[in-house]
């Protein structure tokens, strides 16, 4: 048996620079974090020489005069996928050891590639072709190969029986011991594999337990374990580059249908279904379209800048795992109709998050609920009509900002949870009724509560003031005389944010009249407010 361990040093940097090898010698630092707390997480050699330290703030890094780039987990994923591809291009037996390390079983490859040295060079060459500079070690012992690839640069070939000798200069840290074991070894002055291997194993096990024995074996190159073969990629992905770009939905649907069929076949073969479908379009030249890309569908790193215009992404979260390609296509079509891509599509990437398929059985005595697939279709159709941001379950937000709420994804309650929830609400109501029936905090004085029908969005109005108090109100083409006014009720907040608010609300009894015909129209009780930030009056709603 022989194993080749392929290790990508400084993986984060390599992942980013994979497509731009000419930048390798430049001083580049990768940063990560939410602004304003952005930190350096990796850097090129040149950047480290320029004074960059990991953990440094972005501003400090800029002072060192290096180029700053964001860390890209997508590119890391792609680099990892490329690494796996590299392994699979050599042998079907590979182990996905870590994002930056894979192990390839090279036994029996001599007839294809020749000696171990040839295999090593072939791998390094192919890795370079993929834009990766790798360290590689081949050994009969799998763990020895891993440690050597991590610890030594370039190609390391370890003849069988010489593992211990070869690893002797390797730092103990490279064996990935636990923090506690590392501290103990450090206190003992054991810093290299040679020193560790020289310790008596029995006495070591008395002191460090099984971990001591494991580390000892690793240090001697005597650790034995089998290769853990990598499963094919979890994220199932299908890609299609288009010779002619596609603009319209119909031909796009045809292509998507093909991809979905393939995907569902693959899922079925593995007895899986899709929990989510991730659609990515690479766009060609942009053209002016009054399309709105919904914020929640666009990841932060694509929300602005160059990429935001070239890549279009859409995630179709499914209520239950599905693999009905026709249903999936209908849902995707609805999503795309509601939110079309802002340009010609030149490449389609379709990925599925695999999950175990749904297996539920309805209760004998519970009323039937809508089929989740159909319900999702209905919700998607509604979303197409009203926009994604306007569908779901409203949820109150804990804030003093008037009328604030958010929409959460509509999830039909199961019979059991629905029963429990209704039961809990009923109990709460009963308890509240014992102290102040039908009264909230404002109605706690025993007065009946008044309902207010909120206009969403608020209706712009013009208000005429007399001695600081509204006297006439004009909105929606109506004119009204204020018969009685109560207020202002002042609220302000979120002063630490850019979108702070400051509003003066009035409760007004308005008698409407027709401008030319004089008084005599209908009357109503309205909630009207003045927004200091946009310096305008609005009608929030009408009281019952």
């Amino acid at each position: 048996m022989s194993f080749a361990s392929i290790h990508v040093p400084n993986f984060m940097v390599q992942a980013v620079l994979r497509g731009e090898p000419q930048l390798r010698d430049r001083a580049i630092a990768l940063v990560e974090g939410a602004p304003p707390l952005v930190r350096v997480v990796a850097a090129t050699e040149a950047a480290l020489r320029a004074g960059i330290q990991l953990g440094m703030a972005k501003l400090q890094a800029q002072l060192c005069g290096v180029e700053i780039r964001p860390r890209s987990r997508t590119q890391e994923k792609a680099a990892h996928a490329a690494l796996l591809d590299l392994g699979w291009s050599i042998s079907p037996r590979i182990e996905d050891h870590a994002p930056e390390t894979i192990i390839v079983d090279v036994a029996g490859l001599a007839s294809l590639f020749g000696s171990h040295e040839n295999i090593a060079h072939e791998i390094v060459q192919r890795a370079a072709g993929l834009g990766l500079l790798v360290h590689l070690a081949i050994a009969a012992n799998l763990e020895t190969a891993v440690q050597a690839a991590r610890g030594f640069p370039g190609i390391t070939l370890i003849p069988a029986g010489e593992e211990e000798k070869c690893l002797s200069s390797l730092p103990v840290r490279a064996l990935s011991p636990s923090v506690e074991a590392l501290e103990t070894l450090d206190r003992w002055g054991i810093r290299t594999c040679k020193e560790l291997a020289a310790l008596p194993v029995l006495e070591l096990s008395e002191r460090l337990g099984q971990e001591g024995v494991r580390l000892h074996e690793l240090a001697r190159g005597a650790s034995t374990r089998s290769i853990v073969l990598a499963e094919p990629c979890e994220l199932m992905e299908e890609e299609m580059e288009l010779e002619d770009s596609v603009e319209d939905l119909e031909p796009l649907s045809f292509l998507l249908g093909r991809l979905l069929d393939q995907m569902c076949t693959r899922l079925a073969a593995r007895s899986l279904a899709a929990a989510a479908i991730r659609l990515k379009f690479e766009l060609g030249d942009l053209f002016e379209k009054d399309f709105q890309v919904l914020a929640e569908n666009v990841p932060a790193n694509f929300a602005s800048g160059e990429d935001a215009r070239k890549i279009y992404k859409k995630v179709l979260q499914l209520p239950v795992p599905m693999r009905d390609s026709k249903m999936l296509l209908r849902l995707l079509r609805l999503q795309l109709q509601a939110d079309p891509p802002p340009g010609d599509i030149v490449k389609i990437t379709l990925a599925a998050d695999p999950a175990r398929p749904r297996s539920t059985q309805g209760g004998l005595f519970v009323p039937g609920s809508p089929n989740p697939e159909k319900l999702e279709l209905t919700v998607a159709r509604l979303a197409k009509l009203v926009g994604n941001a306007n569908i779901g379950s409203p949820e109150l937000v804990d804030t003093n900002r008037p009328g604030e709420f958010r929409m959460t994804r509509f999830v039909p309650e199961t019979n059991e949870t629905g029963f429990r929830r209704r039961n809990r609400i009923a109990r709460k109501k009963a308890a509240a009724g014992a102290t102040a029936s039908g009264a909230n905090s404002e109605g706690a004085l025993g007065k009946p509560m008044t309902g207010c029908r909120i206009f969403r969005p608020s209706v712009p109005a013009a208000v005429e003031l007399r001695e600081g108090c509204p006297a006439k109100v004009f909105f929606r083409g109506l004119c009204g005389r204020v018969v009685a006014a109560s207020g202002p009720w002042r609220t302000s907040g979120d002063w630490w944010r850019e979108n702070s608010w400051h509003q003066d609300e009035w409760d007004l009894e308005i008698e409407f009249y027709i401008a030319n015909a004089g008084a005599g129209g209908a009357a109503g009780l309205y909630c009207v407010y003045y927004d200091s930030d946009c310096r305008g009056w609005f009608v929030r709603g009408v009281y019952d």
Partner: protein
Amino acid sequence: MYTELHARSAFSFLEGGALPEELASVCVERGMAAMALLDRDGVYGAPRFYLAAQKLSLRAHIGAEVTAAGGWRFPLLVETRTGYQNLCRLITRMKLRARKGEGHVSDEELAEKAAGLICLTGGREGPLAHALSRGGIESGTVCVRQLCEIFGHTNVYVELQRHLDRAEEARNHAALEIARKLRLPVVATNGVSYALPEQREVLDVFTCIRNHRTLEAAGRLLARNSERYLKSPEEMAHLFLDIPEAIANTQLVSSRLQFNLSDLGYEFPKYPVPDGKSQMHFLRERTQEGMVKRYGAENEKARAQIEKELALIEKLDLAGYFLIVWDIIRFCCEHSILVQGRGSAANSAVCYALGITAVDPVGMDLLFERFLSEERGEWPDIDLDLPSGDQRESAIQYVYERYGKLGAAMTANVITYRGRSAAREIGKALSFDAETLGRLTSLVSAWEYKDENDTLTRHFQDAGLDLQHPQIRKFLELCVKFQDLPRHLGQHSGGMVVCQGQLDSVVPLEPATMPGRVVVQWDKEDCADMGIVKVDLLGLGMMAVLEDSLKIIRDDYGEEIDLGRLPMDDRVVYETLQKADTVGMFQIESRAQMSCLPRLQPKRFYDIVVQVAIIRPGPIVGKMVNPYLKRRQGREPATCLHPSLEPVLERTLGVPLFQEQLLRMAMIVAGFTGGQAEELRRAMGFKRSEKRMKDIEQKLRSGMEKNGITGEVQETIVQSITSFALYGFPESHAASFALLAYSSAYLKCHYLAAFTAAMLNNQPMGFYQPATLVKDAQRHGLRIKPIDVTCSEWLCKLEKQDESFSVRLGLRYVKGLRADVGAEIVRERNLHRFVSIDDLKLRVSAIRKTELATLAEIGALNFISEARGSHRRDALWQIERTSRNAGPLLERCEETEGSVSGENEATDGATNAAVKSPLLPMTADERLVADFRGTGMTVGPHPMRYHRARMKRQGVVTASELNNLPDGTHVRFAGGVIARQRPGTAHGFVFLSLEDETGIANAIITPRLFEEYHVVIVHQQFLLIEGRLQNQDNVVSVKVENVQGLAVTQAETTSHDFH
């Protein structure tokens, strides 16, 4: 006209956003003539509010919001002195029975203490609002009726607040209905929580801190709007246009509130004297006895001074105060506790005669008025220095016992938000992550000197924060707003107040965090301002060192030393001081002191008094240091500012160095009385007001003109007085400190081992780290032995060998070793010696693996077995096995084996320990790293010693060689940084003390160089400096031109920074 009757200040701790002074001044700006401060469960801010109001001619009404069992608060206004006393007692009772920060009053207690108090029905947190929310208008009516029963129908006002809130207005409607029904008057308030609308932000952050939330997550806990600011009468009248009587009634209530804080009714306790004698008579007797003892019966000058002082004491009726302090001194003497009065008390011959102070004010011609004067109308201030620790605690407990739990209490210490604490709390509220917060707070500068770039803005940039980001900008703004706002109430380290009768009727008392302690709600400044006498029982590390030294000398040397009878002309002491060899000596060990000593060349005790006082901001800012030193060295004539000042300035060669001289100068040149002169000093003091300063300066000038002192001389005298007054040091205080300085120098020179052990046992204290103290002692020939579990005690101790003493380090220096485990080790070892590490682990079962590892790593287990050549790694190898549980199966095996070989247990243990490990011994540097990691010091060679050959090749000289090089030589020096300073008076210069194996060298870094090498200078432990040697009058330092970090060791050495 409107009076605000319900305002909270920041002394409601996290529930108010403005200081009382700020509220008072805004109140006056808005045209109000009176205001009531009602802080939560206390009168914490009342003195500051009262004093500020007095200055602004504002009537300051006092009250408090008192918490009830249901969580609501009764807003109570004090009408009369009885009412104030009732309020204080009510709060004291609720506080003392509850945990800190908690507690509530019952209706019965309220009824009992209701006299003299007016109750409002409160706003959102008041009793009425709670009743309304519970049961509507009926419940509200019942609640108000109950209040009328408790406080009386005429003492309850239905309170209306309008913060433009619907729910509140609904409550107001109900309140009006109840008021009409019960025929009660209504009164408008604004429930003020801050002075200005923008301070609402501070209050919101306080809310987050109180509720442990971030601003994002606080939701409706935050204020709905910014309406709780101090509104003008016009604004309030406009708000209550429909209820004008609510506004008018505020005036009525205000006119009823006759009490103010000048009417506290405080009385100092009377000292119990034998029957038939007055306190004064008793004091005269005690003073007479003391005078004979201290001065002899024939000293007429002393007698006259004492008579003069006693006459004033009698006139001001202060005999009781002196007797009480004398009583504390007597207690300390009876219990062998070192005690020494300091501060201005040392100006008093009566204090000297009573044994309160150790400095002879008659012999030193000190000015009594600095201590006590008729004009000032204040209590004298006597500070007592006691050894820090248990002995000070026993003196404090004695005062408690003597005056009762409600008769004595500690003064409070108001902890305020400073740069770091504010940044931390605000950062948390703004959801900053822990790492950024840590980075930010560590960057907030602690240098004393602040250059123009040393701003919060700069720190934020250094921390990598983008100032363009709105959240960061807000953070910065809030940090500025938070400065000096109270955070919580602590306990002053030693200030005690006592009272005749019940202290709890003067100021509310609270339990302190420390068990058995009670603390008043005011800090020592407030107590002084309110005329409450305080006695400071301060813990002084050096007193503890002296006391411990005396004990060690008694026990080990067999000698008895009396600090009161030390020879004050000891040649060795003065020679040592002249060489500035003063590491560890009280007050004269700092770098600045060391650089002055060789120039001052002290030859007698008074020189030490000068030495203690001269390195102070006053003389430095007033540019007095160099003229004095030059005159002392005969390099310039000792002229005087004016011939009339010669008697005053003669002793200090014509240069004013002490506060007393300033006072006397004012008395001579401007004809001030002693009291007026003291008033002058205070006007120039810390809380200086421009107007007060101008007034007094005018008086000074006109006085001088009357005496014919005009023109340039007048200007020079005024200049020297004003520039000096702020930071000057009283001569009496300097003399008290000089006594301690001399004692410490004497003990160090003659009993180095005892002094070093005592210093090490009382760390942290002083200017240097223990590592430096150890190295200094070693350079003086003292042997310091490492920690060894077979012979070390918890504390450092002396060991005698061949008629000489060495110091054995104690287990207290093992980092992470718990004191109880240390005591257990010593106890078990004293029973019989440990034969192996297993034996130690078995007998000291509480010991943890980490503790064993540290002991092994520092070599403290090396001698546990008798096997020769056992090294630290042998022990480390051993403890890993010892600490690991064998598991149930093997444990049984071991038990069986143990029982079989039980008879030979000790032998087996020894054999076990003798088993050698396969590990190599530590190298010298590894030992060094282990020593510093485990104990913070090494008794082995200094780290620089290992690199001397390399250093020599690079042309680096040693600290001792520096002393012999001529001025101006270009030198290279390398050493470990033991102190970094950037004094406020040094214009941005940085001073470093670097240590090598031969001694300490000083380096001076210019602001430009500091700017350039900031990171290296601040963060590197070892430095290689290059520059021009300055060797003037045996004061040696290197003016650095180049600096670089030096890789010497991985050991984590530490330095004492940022003074």
